[in-house]
């Protein structure tokens, strides 16, 4: 945690994130170290995905400083933003596989658009990425023919195909059975270590994610309420963190919905 900022893949310094007039995150400061698997946890609606949108440049910070891979966000033009996004792999919650393309065509799409590699080389790279996620023989299938776990692995292979140094996972375990969850978590950790990536896993699956994370950030109540190791999080006595970790229905995060601005 005390290493210099140069080793940070992502750095938030007193960043405010807003959607319209609504503040989602206030004065958020955090660092994601290069080479780590960082878990961003928090209850639904806490602003985890908003954090992801800020990192990918979809949402500009209202104030503060945000740097991704050493580049200041937001980028000055769409061209600059796309140049930075080529260095990021993003696994979306809904996978986002193009339904009119086969599995192999989906994975080969970024190669076709962003590189001048000849078709046989592209095909070989696609085959290697499919093999890396355990789907070497699934290249001919259409997305509609895949199970939820397989579709997530295909989306993971596609996100990795340009060998990005930074991987962002948005709720990678949602909707998966325990076996598929285990497969995806093993892939996230294994690929991070074998390819030397930096990974950010945004999720509310606490127990499973803590097993593979080096670093944990918890988002709640419009801010960062925890920043430390998984062990420190598990041992924390902070009531809000305990409510979240133990799944208590009521506590600092109220059971009853209250409109913004009204007293509890």
């Amino acid at each position, binding site marked *: 945690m005390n290493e210099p900022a140069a080793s940070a893949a992502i750095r938030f310094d007193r960043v405010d994130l807003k959607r319209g007039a609504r503040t989602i995150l206030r004065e958020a400061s955090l660092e994601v170290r290069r080479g780590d698997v960082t878990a961003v946890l928090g209850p639904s609606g806490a602003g985890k995905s908003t954090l992801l949108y800020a990192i*990918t440049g*979809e949402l500009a910070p209202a104030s503060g400083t945000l740097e991704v891979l050493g580049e200041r966000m937001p980028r000055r033009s769409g061209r600059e933003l*796309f*140049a930075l*996004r*080529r260095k*990021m792999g*993003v696994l*979306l*919650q*809904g*996978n*986002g*596989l*193009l*339904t*009119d393309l086969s599995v192999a065509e989906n994975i080969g*799409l*970024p190669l*076709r*658009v*962003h590189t001048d590699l000849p078709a046989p080389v592209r095909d070989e790279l696609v085959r290697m990425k499919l093999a890396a996620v355990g789907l070497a023989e699934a290249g001919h299938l259409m997305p509609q023919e895949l199970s939820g776990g397989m579709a997530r692995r295909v*989306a993971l292979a*596609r*996100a990795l195909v340009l060998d990005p140094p930074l991987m962002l996972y948005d709720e990678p375990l949602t909707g998966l059975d325990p076996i598929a969850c285990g497969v995806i978590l093993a892939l996230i950790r294994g690929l991070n270590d074998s390819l030397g990536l930096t990974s950010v896993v945004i999720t509310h699956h606490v127990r499973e994610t803590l097993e593979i994370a080096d670093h944990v950030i918890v988002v709640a109540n419009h801010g960062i309420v925890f920043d430390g190791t998984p062990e420190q999080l598990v041992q924390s006595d902070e009531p809000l963190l305990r409510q979240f970790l133990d799944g208590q229905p009521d506590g600092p995060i109220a059971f009853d919905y209250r409109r913004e601005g009204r007293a509890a």
Partner: protein
Amino acid sequence: MMALLSSLGQIGLFALRILRSLHLPRGQLRDIIRQCYAVGARSLPIVAVGGLFVGLVISLQGYRALEVIGAGSALGTAIGIPLYRELGPVLAAILFCGRAGSSMAAELGLMRATEQITALSMMAIDPVGKVVAPRFVAGVISLPLLTAVFCAFAIFGGYLQAVWVLGVDSGFFWSSLRSSVDLVEDFGQAFTKAAYFGVACSLIATHVGYHAEPTIEGTSVATTRAVVHGSLMVLFLDFILSAILY
């Protein structure tokens, strides 16, 4: 009024964005050909059947009217002129809006709802260039060709009704048709209208689909708008073009 101007401005900017995103290498040509099949070739049956029935009914009604003044043998003229000048391009475009425009809007709306468009953007691929431009170009190419098919089947339907049912002489039918329909004046202008309608229908369908709310209801609204706004725009443009061209 301001809302209407704002919508027109947004559609104009969207059209510019589509044109700027046209880079035929890197697979876009393949996407356009694929969409020509989806948008054009798969609309052929409905356009052909629609044209056939329109031809049958114009022939029937035209013959009844002409027979009153003893000019039943000029039925070819009564079919050819309205078909190429108005009915062919307009009806083919309205059928196109119903079949292909709704399909384009629904596909793009669903792509938005299932994060396919977001995924493209995250891969640093311009979604407009990848999924919108091929559909737009395919629509612009397909509608004039579909109009030709519509008119051909309408004439065939008119011929069947006139010669086989009403007993009009085949030679009179063809000669009146050929003498009244001019290649540039009628045939050419039918294609000019069809090209304009192709731009309008495809632009509206892709615009409403691409900007649909990412929900099931949003997709449904976009599909309806593609058909209703597209059809009304065809009728409006037809009036403007008829006033200019004839």
